[in-house]
């Protein structure tokens, strides 16, 4: 482990912890309302959804428009698991983690099942197929009586608070980051850059594509689990096509291929509509306008493919020499 890597680990951990305590004390001492805490939790969930979609949409460069479907699978699975083991006396956090892992694993397995046949297609065609699969999943849950069918699933333990959601989000983002900076991440990127050259360089492209799709669906499942345990109620129609599009828009706006871009964009696009509530009539108008202006002036998204690095940022402020800054690629 290089010195730069260690430095950036420490800086990031400090920043994450400080941010957590700021958030918490703001809510605890009543500076902001409980309502704000709810939005912050939803933002964390949206960050998980956006960063996980970024694996397929940004790193792999494929159009996947069925992310809400995997979220639904994760949500329903995790809710069923936690409802089953709720009385067992385990602490809430342990139950939440077990349920989220279960949700992620099932979503991941479905991801393999859907990804294997559909990743033969590319671009718009893959987009259409993934929409189709996500709709199948939604309609399945509307008709599946054991999980409440069209009425929705009620009585899910509300065990996902802001702090547990925040920390799970941090873990998910960290894992997606390390994935991107490993040989697997490089293989995924190489497929985005040139699939033929990638195969000719010895990368088993089909397997890597399915891997990317599976990991992406796994984390979508985790996001779904947190959503279920935050809301305490699941309505299958929440996971419709427009919701997938919403997540996709966050990723595109943040910058395809940039994790920090997705985070920033998820925060803005979850909070912005809340602030616009005062102008409720014009809310959607402003929202759409922001998107259009953004796409005209910055079509590559807010950060493009660039990753924000706290270490480089701090070093730049400390006025250290440039050469030392550019040497460490870890952020």
């Amino acid at each position: 482990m290089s010195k730069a890597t260690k430095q950036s680990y420490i800086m990031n951990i400090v920043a994450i912890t400080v941010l957590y305590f700021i958030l918490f004390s703001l809510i605890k001492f009543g500076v902001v309302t409980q309502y704000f805490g709810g939005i912050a939790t939803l933002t964390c969930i949206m960050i998980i959804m956006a960063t996980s979609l970024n694996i397929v949409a940004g790193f792999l460069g494929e159009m996947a428009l069925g992310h809400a479907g995997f979220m639904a699978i994760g949500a329903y699975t995790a809710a069923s698991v936690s409802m089953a083991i709720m009385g067992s006396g385990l602490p809430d956090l342990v139950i939440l983690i077990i349920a989220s892992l279960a949700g992620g694993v099932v979503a991941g397995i479905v991801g393999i099942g859907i990804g294997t046949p559909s990743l033969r297609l590319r671009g718009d065609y893959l987009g259409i197929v993934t929409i189709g699969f996500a709709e199948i999943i939604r309609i399945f849950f509307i008709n599946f009586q054991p999980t409440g069918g069209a009425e929705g699933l009620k009585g899910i333990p509300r065990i996902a608070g802001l702090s547990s959601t925040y920390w799970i989000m941090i873990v998910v983002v960290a894992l997606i980051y390390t994935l991107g900076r490993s040989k697997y991440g490089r293989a995924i990127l190489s497929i985005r850059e040139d699939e033929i050259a990638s195969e000719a360089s010895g990368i088993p492209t089909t397997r890597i594509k399915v891997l990317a799709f599976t990991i992406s669906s796994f984390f979508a499942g985790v996001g779904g689990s947190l959503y279920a345990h935050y809301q305490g109620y699941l309505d299958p129609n929440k996971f419709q096509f427009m919701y997938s599009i919403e997540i996709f828009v966050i990723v595109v706006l943040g910058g395809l291929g940039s994790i920090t871009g997705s985070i920033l964009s998820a925060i803005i696009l979850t909070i912005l509509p809340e602030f616009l509530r005062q102008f409720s009539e014009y809310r959607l108008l402003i929202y759409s306008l922001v998107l259009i202006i953004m796409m005209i002036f910055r079509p590559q998204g807010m950060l493009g493919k660039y990753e924000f690095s706290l270490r480089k940022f701090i070093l730049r402020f400390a006025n250290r020499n440039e050469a030392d800054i550019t040497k460490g690629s870890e952020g």
Partner: protein
Amino acid sequence: MAVLEAKHVTMRFGGLTAVDDFNLTLEKNELVGLIGPNGAGKTTIFNTLTGVYLPTEGEVLVNQTSILGKKVSEVVKMGVARTFQNIRLFKDLTTIQNIEIAYDRFIHYNLAQALFRAPAFFKQEDKAHDYCQELLEIFDMGEYAHTKACNLPYGKQRNLEIARALATSPSVLLLDEPAAGMNPNETAELMETIDFIRNKFKITILLIEHDMSLVMGICERILVVDYGQTIASGLPEEIKNNPDVIRAYLGD
């Protein structure tokens, strides 16, 4: 012992026979040229040798093992690497990342070790990084390690593609028109590079080329194809004076 063998390879696309009864044996450390007019089927031959196309008839052996039914990436693992006529680099990635991707199968850690950054991850990554940096130094491109591939000068891009192919540690290297778009100086440099890597890595090279100075200058043996047929094969001197070859290139 033959490193790469093509036995009676025929490739048909519907009614069109792109390659007809093509035979080739490459011995270890040979440097062979494949020439022919445009549309003669040279690139199709390359594609059958690398497993992109499944030949209609015949078979291809790499180190005595058939590649039929194998995926392109599996053929690469068996020891056949190639470059492309129109450069195909991972443009948005850095030079060293381009190499590291091709070096992938020599980097040993699993997904869990990568996600949780186990010590093995750092060890293997550092090792890979050093190896790839060394490979770049051989090509005199060490200082470009962190430059995006698309920002490299044209000649360097060609070199990077060759370096990337070498990172898969092949026994045979197929070069598809490596001198395309190069000026005479760059071509002369390329000739030196090809000669150098052949001796340095002890590999066999088969190259497609239109630049006759390059082909005649470095190839030990030349194959000429036209309309999918092999019309001549032999030493450069023989090829130069072969009436069939002259007819194929200049017409009757």
